[in-house]
């Protein structure tokens, strides 16, 4: 199911590149990625650890720290490039337009400030001074929307459980009713029961605000359930973007296929095997298709030419030569899909290989 596209996209990322300039050389953490997010849409990011998900969203907030630097590209929020804003303009649009539920929510609250003061900080900075009684009331309401009692406002972070802290972060992220909420693994540090409840709260708040949301999740099952569209990242590249159902049913990129087939199948109650091999070391990545050392379909051509983003349908794109240059694979025959085919079958995924879509 794809959300009906209302007029223009909210966020358009074009050819974004973010490098970390380490002593040993540049780490291309985000390398030439483009995608769009539509109003009210929930966009999920998946990919193995270290593939550049956090870097991407931090770039959207322009919070990349040294030695990292945004090397190029455009980040258009409602059509205007935030990379051209002055620092002060950028500061003003943070939180009021784009808010963040950070990856390390456990440690994201200032340990020496009361919850109330930390939420008030965001409100007062962007909306100007508010009478204290009104402020308290608003914070109480916010806490209520995330199922916390108003007393939490007077507590310090160390007095809260992990789930409570996470909810405080959600309340804080929605305080200014931003157009875009970015949630970086918002539930990863919580236990499973709490995870579900927190996620439901988050979705509820997002829907109420009619905000868009970028959701990074290590739990692909959860992402599959809540996201409208999903982007798959691999080694700093966006390798596939598609509507959630379509992606999970018919992943087109061999990496997506491997990732999705590694999911434990719900029907067969069986753990899928991981993807063979390791993600590349980004300091010295493989040439062209970065996935070729692990790809069961790889041919020499994959090492020689970078695979372009190939549009399969309006809302489904993937960057793999199997899709864009299928003629290169003719000689390789059908014997290549060994490993992948086996895991896929085991996981019961009905993912067609590139050949079949042809």
């Amino acid at each position, binding site marked *: 199911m794809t959300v009906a596209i209302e007029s223009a996209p909210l966020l358009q990322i074009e050819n974004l590149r973010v490098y970390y*300039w*380490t*002593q040993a050389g540049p780490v291309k953490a985000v390398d030439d990625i483009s995608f769009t997010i539509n109003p009210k849409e929930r966009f999920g990011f998946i990919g193995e650890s270290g593939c550049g998900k956090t870097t991407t969203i931090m770039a959207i907030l322009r919070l990349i720290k*040294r*030695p990292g630097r945004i090397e190029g590209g455009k980040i258009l929020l409602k059509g205007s490039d935030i990379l051209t804003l002055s620092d002060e303009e950028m500061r003003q649009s943070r939180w009021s337009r784009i808010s963040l539920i950070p990856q390390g929510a456990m440690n994201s609250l200032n340990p020496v400030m009361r919850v109330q003061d930390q939420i008030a900080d965001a409100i007062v900075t962007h909306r100007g001074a508010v009478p204290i009684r009104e402020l308290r009331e608003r914070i109480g309401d916010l806490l209520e929307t995330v199922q916390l009692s108003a007393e939490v406002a007077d507590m310090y972070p160390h007095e809260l459980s992990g789930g409570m802290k996470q909810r405080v972060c959600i309340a804080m992220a929605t305080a200014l009713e931003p157009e875009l909420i970015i949630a970086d693994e918002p539930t990863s540090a919580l236990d499973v029961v709490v995870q579900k409840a927190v996620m439901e709260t988050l979705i509820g708040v997002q829907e109420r605000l009619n905000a868009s949301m970028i959701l990074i999740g290590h739990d692909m099952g959860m992402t599959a359930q809540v996201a409208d569209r999903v982007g798959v990242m691999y080694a700093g590249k966006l390798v596939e973007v598609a509507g959630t159902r379509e992606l999970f049913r018919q992943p087109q990129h061999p990496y997506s296929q491997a990732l999705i087939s590694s999911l434990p199948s719900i029907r067969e109650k069986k753990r899928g095997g991981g993807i063979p091999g390791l993600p590349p070391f980004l300091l010295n990545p493989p040439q062209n298709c970065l996935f070729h050392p692990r790809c069961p379909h790889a041919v020499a051509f994959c090492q020689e030419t970078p695979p372009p983003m190939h549009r399969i349908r309006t809302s489904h794109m993937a960057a793999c030569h199997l899709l864009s240059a299928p003629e290169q694979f003719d000689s390789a025959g059908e014997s290549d899909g060994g490993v992948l085919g086996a895991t896929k079958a085991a996981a019961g995924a009905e993912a067609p290989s590139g050949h079949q879509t042809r």
Partner: protein
Amino acid sequence: MTTAFMPETGPETAPAEESSIGTRGLRASVRYWLGNWKLSLGLAMIIGLTGFSIFGSYIVDFDLTKVAAGDFNARPSEKYLLGTDNVGRDVWALIIHGIHPSLKVGLIAGVLGTAVGVVLGVVGGYYGGSTDAVISTMADIFLTIPSLLILVVLASYIRTTTLEFTALVIAIFAWAGPTRLIRSQTLSLRERAFVPLAKLSGQSDFEIAIKQILPNLLPYIMAGFVGAVSGAILALVGIQILGLGPLFTPNLGMILQAAYEGAAIFRGMWWWWVPPTAALMIIFISLFLISLALDELANPRLRERAK
């Protein structure tokens, strides 16, 4: 049942592998050190100064450091490179013969203090509990008490002692700093994976302390040592300025004290007070640079960032 075979397989494999993390870290650090200007400069300064003093002592006649060895209050000249003081001692000779005794006091107190500090720190940090409570509280209290004043009380009862004795006395306070440092590091090392692993594999506490913890403490032990040496020299000179130091062997504190007593500053006799001040500055600054470098080694976030 598993424990029966654990000791056979365990000690060889798991801990060895784990502690290699330490070795690998160390190798990377060695590379880092070689390029660290603070460490090289600090070492160069202190080694240079020590060498200057030790070799100089063979060349410059010790008798020039004795009272009435030359003219009184002479300005620097060809005859007296750094002039003479108010009782006719040659300042150049005093400095050359005075640097290494001052360093020696620092070294003695530093070694003693660090040795005690390592033992107490490892014991406290490793065993925790009430042993640790006693050790760390005592260390804190000894750090809190103005050691110089207690030393003054002591020195005022025991006047005219030797440098070696003063060094021993200073060591009474020199252990607290290293103990505190080593304790907190041991505490955090204990929590890391390789210690429980080593324990599981049947190593005794003593073995763990020697084989697993001590090597990883090395940068901190060195930092503690440098701090103790510097603190000891600081205390020694402090006691001496108050007029309570050993008086017979030439040393930097003694020269400075004589200059102070002889109103060198107000008589414009810069050659008398500047050299000991400069030598002490070199000592303190070089030790400081070394400890900064050691800090960076232990805490990579402090390192200078790549452009």
